[in-house]
């Protein structure tokens, strides 16, 4: 058995990993909640954002955390364009078509990146990647502490946007009643694309938080997307609180199962949870029964 200190550190690290997972899942659940679609290209978008952070560092010498000021708006623009001009028109709103169009999009992005950057893994060296923060007897990794903090800030910003701004009100109106929203003058197509933009912007933040501790190659996002789906399903499709709680929970589970079963089998734990939740309670912990 492991000493309680190691277990506590593993669990706390899991919590902080989970915060970044939660960020990825936030974008996914937001899009689901408003558009009622599963965006399969979400993982590929994350890869794009991570490559963006890497490029900003390697070409412009920008600190990964600082590069958020470039990456987040760029990702928002990408998300807006993808929904407005590709996913929306191509799928005409049919559920299965959206799923397939976003799958096609993810294949294009993933392999486009493979053609451009080859399958080499790329990392960013920073002075603080291996720094630790001492919390009583516990040693916590600095980038992960930053990750947890930034994820919570992003969640609060998201909450403010959704609840305290006109755009947020419009988004919630469209999510609730599409036809009614268009009757009072809301441009539904625009709001859909804005929702997509916000979801993708979350990925920009997540990418900047991930890069100091993680690597990027064209398939990196694919590994995250299933985890993100698990979180979204666990928390309840469309529930922002659910995504946060689900993300933290999954992070802890992964950390704990890696500690006991090793890294490769840690992933299996996540998929089994995913399958179990879908089979037993597909509406998740915080989702309303449809």
């Amino acid at each position, binding site marked *: 058995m492991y000493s309680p200190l190691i277990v506590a550190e593993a669990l706390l690290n899991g919590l902080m990993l989970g915060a970044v997972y939660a960020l990825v899942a936030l974008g996914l659940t937001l899009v689901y909640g408003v558009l009622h679609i*599963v965006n399969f290209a979400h993982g590929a978008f994350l890869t794009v954002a991570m490559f963006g952070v890497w490029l900003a560092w390697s070409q412009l010498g920008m600190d990964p955390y600082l590069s958020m000021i470039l990456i987040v708006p760029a990702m928002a623009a990408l998300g807006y364009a993808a929904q407005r001009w590709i996913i929306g028109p191509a799928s005409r709103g049919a559920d299965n078509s959206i799923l397939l169009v976003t799958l*096609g999009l*993810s294949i294009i992005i993933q392999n486009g990146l493979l053609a451009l950057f080859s399958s080499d893994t790329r990392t960013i060296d920073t002075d603080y990647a291996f720094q630790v923060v001492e919390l009583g007897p516990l040693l916590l990794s600095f980038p992960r502490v930053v990750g947890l903090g930034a994820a919570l800030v992003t969640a609060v910003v998201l909450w403010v946007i959704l609840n305290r701004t006109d755009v947020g009100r419009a988004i919630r109106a469209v999510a609730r009643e599409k036809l009614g929203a268009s009757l009072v003058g809301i441009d539904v197509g625009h709001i859909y694309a804005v929702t997509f933009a916000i979801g993708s912007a979350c990925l920009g933040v997540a990418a900047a938080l991930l890069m100091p501790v993680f690597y990027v190659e064209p398939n990196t996002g694919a590994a995250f997307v299933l985890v993100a789906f698990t979180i979204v399903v666990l928390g309840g499709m469309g529930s922002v609180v659910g995504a946060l709680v689900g993300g933290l929970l999954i992070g802890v589970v992964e950390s704990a199962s890696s500690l006991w079963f090793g890294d490769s089998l840690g992933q299996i734990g996540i998929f089994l949870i995913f399958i179990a939740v879908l*089979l037993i309670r597909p509406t998740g912990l915080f989702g309303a029964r449809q």
Partner: protein
Amino acid sequence: MTPRDLAAPAAVTLALCVTPFVGLDGAMLNLLIFMMIIALAAQGWNILGGFGGLASFGHAAFFGTGAYATAILQTKAGLGAWPSLLLGVALGAAVGAFIGFLSFRSGLRGSYFALITLAFAEVLRIASNSAEITGGAAGILVRLDYGFWNMQFEDRRWFAVLAVICVGLSLALVRWMERARFGARLIAVRENEEAARALGVDVFRVKMGAITLSAGVTALAGCLYAQNFLFLDAQVAYGSWISIEALFAAIVGGLGTLFGPLIGAVVLLGVGEITKAVVGGVPGVDLVVFGVLLILTVAFAPGGLAGLAERLGFKRPGAKRIGLKGGRA
């Protein structure tokens, strides 16, 4: 089903049987074999995704089970190649029935069904990558030993013929389905599950039949793959590439049509080869083209190439016009 119904599948199969003997070089022959394997996997996908409207993202689960069963039964259990292949198909179908039982009992469809199939395939991939029986990460190698009973042919043209015959059998199976009550019930379930149930269709049973058949056909593709390449690892057997190619070929070719998956596999892989030849050895370009073709198909030709051909006036008896139907899960 009358003998006349089988005329078109038989003619296509015969024509394909002849192609290996018209002087194809080794590379073309390999491409033909690969096209047939993908066509078979896509044919399986189409039974569930096209006729049943249940798009799966995890047909690798069936493909890989067929492939691993064929390889393991030969190398570890000392069984002959042919019985291994049959058992592989049966095991693949069993995995299909298992996944179907769990998913359909919980009423999963639409995106939820796509995601759960993907998750099952991933669990199998990770498990087979560390299990001992599958050779773990090193993979599994079937010993090269030519002979009819080993299903290994020194003249690879005969393996191509074998693959074509398997595709022919799948065409006959789907043609039977189109003509049988089962097919009609399956399409009814796709179009409107509640209405079908109200008419007395046992929805659960129909879906179970569809996923079992679908998984069996895709497993056969996996068995042929194992027998053709004589090597397997977790990424090849259970990796998402095959789920994606089967889905792409079926949709680009024509969802819910008899010849759609075959057309789709031939066209996609053909276009892929041409792209690779034009662009050179850049990895991934062919898949970029596949992705573009998929989106274009969904956007402009929901009936796929088979549907386009029909629209342009090539009338095919028995073709059913369909589009993608989305039931919100």
